[in-house]
């Protein structure tokens, strides 16, 4: 078995004392970052890129650090959802539905440990999924030429919009804005300056870290201004800290179902943890018997989104590693980090640099285990951090963000650009445009243009090459399906509403 041989090798990388220490620091930092309002997994990971670079970490260690921070952030976001009823980011919204009521009933400790356990189970299941499916997909993906890649990226964008639920058009517009932003700067093929308007700072294009931190940190800082409450009282985590066997068995079936669903949703490009947690919560609610307590503190209502969340976080590593296509905002950031190290994610990564891929996969196992071991005893400590007032926290976030941006190029132009992007992001957010779609568009944009131009160079300008192989036919069919699905859903919803109106 090749796979297990490689996995063993990967554990060799991940369990080296240096990398183990890195993973420990990463999960710890990640949990704190996820806990703080205004910082989520996306800007948490983005902030660490320049630091990892400045520290001169080797690529596999840097990647392990980023993955550990990602998982830690996903977990840290739960603590503020459960104890404060303030979800740190979109994917934690569902967690608060049942988590906060549980905390109010004096079961905060149980809720926190059950959510840690659920994250662990979800992460473990999904990582196993990554081990099983990623090499297969990578082998298959070698057959992809530029035309196939281009069509696949169209699918990723359409998927993003189709999965967005109530606002597909706004998501599509946001993705197009991101795609467009990637055009700015020198065109690599012809040397033409595009949309720089004579500015030297833009000649190199918009730096990835600048875009991420502008969109997510600066706009979040502005959003925090609206919430005028200061140091809201967290529910005290008292009483029993650990769940018992009965409670564990009670949520086990939920864990398994949600883990599988979360992994599948995570693998789809564009659909991330937010969707996974919402879908599994709704389906568990439907599956539960009539006398369920969903919404009033049902453990299953907490376990479902938690499991799905971390399962999809790991699942989104599959398209990132095998195809180089991000499945979520955070993996988009990780691709940006890989590019800084001159590593191109994609099928060849499995052949050329197996130590990086398998080291990363093994470190996902390690980081998941660390999180559960570390979190249960440290819950008291983490709840203390929640009491830090905004007037101390926000300036710190703003300064760290500026350092992160300045560290990339050491020009103040990037700081101005970050502020501008942040204001634009804030306005877009106010109008209900999803910001992570811009980010995904930005990452895909450059790749998409390169592949389109390469494909058309091969065919000497004939558009027919985009429809010429069986793979492209299948992907085009999926694109059509993905466009048709939301339209059909809206149509059906309207028909239902009309029927209801007629009945009333």
């Amino acid at each position, binding site marked *: 078995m090749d796979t297990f041989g490689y996995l063993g090798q990967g554990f060799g990388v991940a369990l080296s004392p240096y990398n183990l220490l890195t993973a420990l620091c990463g999960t710890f930092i990640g949990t704190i970052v996820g806990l703080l309002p205004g910082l989520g997994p996306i800007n948490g990971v983005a902030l660490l890129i*320049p*630091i990892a670079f*400045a*520290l*001169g970490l080797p690529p596999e260690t840097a990647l392990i650090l980023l993955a550990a921070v990602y998982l830690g952030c996903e977990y840290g976001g739960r603590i503020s959802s459960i104890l404060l009823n303030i979800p740190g980011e979109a994917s934690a919204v569902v967690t608060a539905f049942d988590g906060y009521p549980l905390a109010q009933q004096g079961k905060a400790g149980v809720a926190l440990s059950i959510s840690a356990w659920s994250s662990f189970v979800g992460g473990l299941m999904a990582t196993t999924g990554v081990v099983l499916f990623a090499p297969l997909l990578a082998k298959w993906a070698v057959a992809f030429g530029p035309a196939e890649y281009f069509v696949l990226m169209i699918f990723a964008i359409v998927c993003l919009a189709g999965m967005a639920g*109530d606002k597909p*058009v706004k998501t*599509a*517009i946001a993705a*197009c*804005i991101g*795609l*467009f932003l990637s*055009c700015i700067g020198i*065109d690599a*093929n*012809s040397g*033409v300056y*595009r*949309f720089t*308007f004579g500015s030297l700072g833009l000649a190199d294009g918009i730096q990835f870290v600048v875009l991420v931190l502008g969109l997510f940190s600066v706009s979040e*800082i*502005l*959003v*925090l*201004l609206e919430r*005028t409450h*200061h140091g809201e009282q967290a529910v005290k985590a008292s009483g029993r800290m650990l769940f018992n066997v009965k409670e564990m068995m009670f949520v086990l079936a939920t864990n398994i179902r949600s883990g599988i669903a979360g992994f599948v949703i995570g693998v789809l490009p564009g659909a991330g943890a937010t969707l996974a947690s919402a879908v599994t919560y709704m389906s568990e609610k439907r599956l539960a018997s009539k006398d369920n307590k969903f919404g009033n503190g049902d453990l299953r209502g907490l376990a479902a989104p938690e499991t799905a969340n971390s399962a999809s976080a790991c699942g989104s590593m599959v398209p990132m590693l095998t195809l180089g296509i991000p499945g979520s905002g955070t993996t988009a950031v990780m691709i940006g980090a890989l590019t800084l190290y001159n590593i191109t994610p994609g099928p060849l990564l499995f052949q050329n640099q197996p130590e990086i891929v398998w080291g990363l996969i093994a470190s996902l196992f390690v980081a998941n285990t660390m999180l559960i071991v570390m979190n249960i005893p440290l819950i008291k400590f983490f709840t203390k951090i929640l009491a830090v*007032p*905004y*007037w*101390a926290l*926000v*300036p*710190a976030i*703003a*300064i*760290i963000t*500026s*350092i992160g941006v*300045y*560290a990339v190029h*050491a020009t*103040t132009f990037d*700081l*101005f650009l*970050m*502020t501008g992007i*942040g*204001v634009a992001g804030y306005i877009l*957010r*106010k*109008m*209900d445009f999803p910001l992570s779609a811009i980010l995904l568009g930005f990452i895909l944009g450059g790749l998409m*243009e390169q592949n*389109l*131009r390469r494909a*058309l*160079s091969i065919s000497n*300008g004939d558009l027919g090459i985009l429809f010429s192989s069986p793979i492209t036919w299948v992907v085009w069919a999926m694109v059509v399906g993905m466009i048709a699905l939301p339209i059909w859903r809206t149509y059906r919803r309207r028909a239902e509403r009309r029927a209801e109106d007629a009945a009333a």
Partner: protein
Amino acid sequence: MSQRIFGVVLLVASIGLALSAWGYQAPFSYEPVGPRAYPLLLLSLLALGGIYLLVKPASAHAVSNEPPLDRHVVRKVTTCVVLLVIYAAVFELLGFIPASTVFAIGMARLYGGSWRASVIAGLLLGVGMYLLFDKLLDVPLPLGILSSLEI
């Protein structure tokens, strides 16, 4: 209403950018697709999006997740943006420590800290972040007016 305004802005911006993109032509080309086609394609999609936002009637079922803006919030947000711009302008000029201290004091005041607390937080952040990032994490930061103190 704001949707429509945004639709107009998007439409005008994409037409304007498309006009400026029209001139992007490679003097020598080795490939059938030049540097112009792809941005134009995207800008036309964006223009279509702008038209959609302009035409689409505001749905009564649409629920916004974000609280509405009032004058008070707008003033605070503007102050915050001005602070960020000033910070960017003096970052290299004054150097990291003085710029960050002043900026942090302003931000802390904006987020409701008392004067005393803000000044303490500002000084701690300005000096502490410099030590943490420049000395410990090897991220070089400008010293500016304090550069004579460099050891």
